[in-house]
């Protein structure tokens, strides 16, 4: 067990040190969701029908999802940097299990996402909404799963890439539309038929729906649209397991 846990801890804690020692990254991580939430909620407040919720409140869990998404991008970009700098070669010839590389990266991205989300939650009173304690607890649990899933996806893409610019381009092309069409940005009801199909094919739609339901647990907020709960849980869990096994398999085979 030590042969797996110690290397995982080593690589996880190294990633956290990297994050904390890059001041610009910390400032960006704290400031970016705040800025996006303020401007989007102010700009779309009267344009989007968010059911019974104020749009700023509706958007809040979506911004937390965005935090997890950005944390995943920045966490897994270090895979390419580590390969370029030569650090990764030292890890690959060590007796550390290859799965430890995947787990440590997923845990680091998720830890950063959870910490950022916790800070972001302090802004909730500004939105005039107080989540229930079970909502926060279950939300943290779901967010843990979301962070792991998105980091696994980022890892899967980053492992085979050599260019950080290319990785950014692919991640933006793939993940931002996934976020936009997940129901985080606007409710997925009442859209054009073709867009409805695209939304239903988007796995993040189910992940976001699950997170939103938990976030608003015990509140009077009624969300418009969304998949059945069982389907949201099944797709979210399936996606996490699929990406985890695909990442580990890819690292073991390389």
């Amino acid at each position, binding site marked *: 067990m030590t042969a797996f846990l110690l290397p995982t801890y080593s*690589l996880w804690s*190294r990633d956290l040190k*990297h994050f904390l020692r890059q001041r610009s990254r910390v400032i960006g991580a704290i400031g970016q969701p705040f800025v996006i939430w303020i401007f989007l909620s102010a700009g779309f407040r009267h344009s989007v029908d968010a059911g019974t919720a104020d749009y700023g409140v509706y958007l809040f869990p979506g911004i937390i999802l965005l935090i997890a998404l950005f944390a995943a991008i920045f966490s897994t970009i270090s895979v390419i940097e580590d390969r370029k700098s*030569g650090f990764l*070669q*030292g*890890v690959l010839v060590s007796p550390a299990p290859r799965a430890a590389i995947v787990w440590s990266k997923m845990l680091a991205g998720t830890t950063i996402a959870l910490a950022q989300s916790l800070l972001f939650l302090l802004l909730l009173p500004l939105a005039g909404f107080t989540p229930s304690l079970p909502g926060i607890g279950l939300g943290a649990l779901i967010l843990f799963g979301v962070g792991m899933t998105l980091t696994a996806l980022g890892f899967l893409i980053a492992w085979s890439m050599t260019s950080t610019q290319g990785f950014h381009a692919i991640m933006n092309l793939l993940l931002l539309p996934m976020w936009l069409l997940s129901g985080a940005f606007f409710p997925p009801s009442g859209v054009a038929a073709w867009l409805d199909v695209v939304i239903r094919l988007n796995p993040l739609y189910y992940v976001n729906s699950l997170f939103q339901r938990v976030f608003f647990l015990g509140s009077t907020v009624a969300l418009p649209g969304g998949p059945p709960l069982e389907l949201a849980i099944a797709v979210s869990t399936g996606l996490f397991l699929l990406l985890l096994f695909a990442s580990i398999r890819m690292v073991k085979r390389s």
Partner: protein
Amino acid sequence: MLSLRDIAHSYHSRTGGTTRALHGVSVDAARGAVTAVIGANGSGKSTLFRLVTGALPLRAGSIALDGKPVHGARRGVVFQSPALDPLLTVRENLRHHAMLYGIRLGDADLPAAIIDVLDLRDRLDQKVATLSGGYQRRVELAKALLTGPDLLVLDEPFTGLDVAARDAFFAVLQHMTVSRGLVTLLVTHDLAVATRCDRVVLLEAGTVIANARPAELLAEFGHTVVVIRGHALMDIERRIHAASDLKTLRNGEESLLLYDTSLQDVLMLVDERDARIEDIEARRPSLDDYFIARTGRSFSGDMQELIAA
């Protein structure tokens, strides 16, 4: 003892082409000795390094340390390019690396013998990015030694070091190899260093063309090699052969080597005022002379072409 037997490795391109990097390579490297692996660019030495370190899967042949498969052995590896984390301190780099090998190190557990001999004690809390190239290489070596390896494998560890730093680094490497009874495999293109190793393995086009102590390889050249540089040296070589039984080697068109001789003997055979002769020099034989004798071209010439390219 590290035993490599009948190692072969080929690279396959996506277009279906195959490049044979190594074939029929068998080498023994003893404990407490530094074995240098030298060879020109493309000779297969990097492939051999990657196979021994486990960076490449072994498909043909066997690699064993003391009779057991090498993949189970504790290996210390120093790469040509840095494998350090520049944002972390020396101490953090060492600790994180040890954990990859399942070892948790406290402050008191950092092996003093390694830290002191590598002169890192005062730099433990310095970020690696702020260290000189020489000290970064020392940290690399400390990392490799930290986990108590039986086998130390180094790929061009002197890259970026000046001569003084290189010599100091090599002295530490030799000391550690002898004092800890390590099997040390040093992949290098630095012939001056290779000459000081206990054994030299010369690779050419993926095969071993020499495997002996440096002194054994250089024995046939005697104490002195005389080098004549100029042009149209074939004619001069013919005249030397007609007048003596001196052994000669030509390194391209511009350089003629006469070995196991002296400058005086050569000056009795050639006229140094000959317009075709630009320079005559007497020096100690080097591994480059051996390389020329076996391959017909200069090892250092290959390297200079590589650097120029």
